């Protein structure tokens, strides 16, 4: 039953993703990619939850490496997207629309 429930969520999220992303103008495609990159760093949540004190040795090694890489994705992704989006400005001359 859990599997069905998870697939349900998956399918709905895919459809929602299609709806949301098709409204993003091509001007913002690069920030969209780096921003969605940051979101795909969500693996971090899974990696954090897997770091149980009861685990030892190789499991901890794999988990820690996953945490490092996913954190790079999250922090770097959001930071670089913010840096990019800060550069997109409207024309500031009066009346120019």
């Amino acid at each position, binding site marked *: 039953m859990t599997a069905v429930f998870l697939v349900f969520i998956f399918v709905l999220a895919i459809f929602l993703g299609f709806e949301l992303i098709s409204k993003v103008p091509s001007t913002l495609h690069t920030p969209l990619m780096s921003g969605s990159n940051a979101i*795909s760093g969500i693996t971090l949540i899974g990696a954090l939850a897997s770091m149980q004190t009861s685990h030892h040795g190789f499991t901890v090694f794999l988990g820690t490496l996953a945490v490092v890489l996913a954190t790079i994705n999250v922090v770097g992704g959001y930071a670089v997207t913010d840096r990019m989006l800060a550069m997109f400005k409207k024309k500031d001359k009066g009346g120019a629309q």
Partner: protein
Amino acid sequence: MTLNQVGINFVYVLSAALFIFGLKMLSSPATARRGNLISALGMLIAISVTLLAQGLDYRWVLAGMLIGSIIGTAGAYVVKMTAMPEMVALFNGFGGLASLLLAWSEYHQNPAMVPVITIIAALSVFIGGVTFTGSMVAFGKLAGKIPQQAVVFKGQHLINAGILLAAIGASALFYLTPASMIGYLLFVVIILVALAFGVTSTIPIGGADMPVVISLLNSYSGLAACAAGFVVSNNILIVAGALVGASGIILTRIMCKAMNRSLANVLFSGFGTATVKTAGEEGHKGEIKPASAEDVYYILEAADSVAFVPGYGLAVAQAQHVVKELGDLLEANGTEVVYAIHPVAGRMPGHMNVLLAEANVPYDQLVEMDDINPRMETVDVCVVIGANDVVNPAAVDDDRSPIYGMPIIETFRAKTVIVLKRSMSPGFAGIENALFYGENTRMYFGDAKASIQALVAEFKSGN
């Protein structure tokens, strides 16, 4: 304070909602930055609440997050805007590898998985592995560390098919005995095969097709996170991964459409390896008319409307700032200035927009192909900077051309076209460009940046 599993999952719902809001706000440049911060807030909440769970090994968690944050922040603030495609490729790869490692560590800890989960774990490490090495190859090509050309050899498709079959075979056997020694061995085989497949499937794709590849790898990195989410039964991984997966798929489709090619053609054809001889090769219907900086200055000075059409050459020459300076001088001269951007100009979706935004070009001056083409006749001068195939009229009128049918910015319909180019060598696709021989075309040879600087100097001395 510790939270139980149900409480944590409720907070994840909030995070998912914030991700969705954030993506929604990306639909306009005016709200995009706030959207990104909202998305980041969603992530922060999800991370914080996860850390409140019981029994976490904080030493390694904090060490890992600290190292990752330092590397991520440094990378984000050091990277040049022209190098953004490499950066995104690298991050995609890290995302894929992280998902691979998560699925691996989960399997290592609990080898006796539910049968369905074993298959998803195999899928998860496979997608993660392909994303990782595929992204590394893309990164190498974009950063110029390995040759950009498509690498094709005989029997390549057979080798790829063989690798894929090996992966499916290993996964099937793994499904039968996940908890045994042989099962573990097979799991490692799947990882190795995935890593190999990432390389062999990306090397046949040439430099100018990179927008498609990056979009596709972007999608894979999301799907890898999603698959890892199924392995560890975590909703937020599934939702966020699916959103990213969908985003990458849409971008891939947009890029393919903008090149009038199917995804299969981009992935398997090794496009651009052979110089294609077209009708234009036998006899050009015109001659090349070179222009000096002074000639170009007089043309621009007299123009009422100018459209700049940038391509990858602009990024290579780092000419975005001088282009903006020239644009400002033109506007001060009473000329209407826009920047017309083809969807696949540059090496990733939206690459040119970011470069011009960096040079302080307001986003209302960045116009899309579909907006400029209908009014192309009213444009006095099109200035093509480092773009080639995306302005090649053969796409419209030569049905023997390999790019026939590809939507282009129809600069040849403007009153005058000025093409900035280093030499007469053909573009990435190896296709002759009839635009250069057009009646209304002037060729302005030289390095893009130096050429535009010369124009800026002409304007300053002219006024």
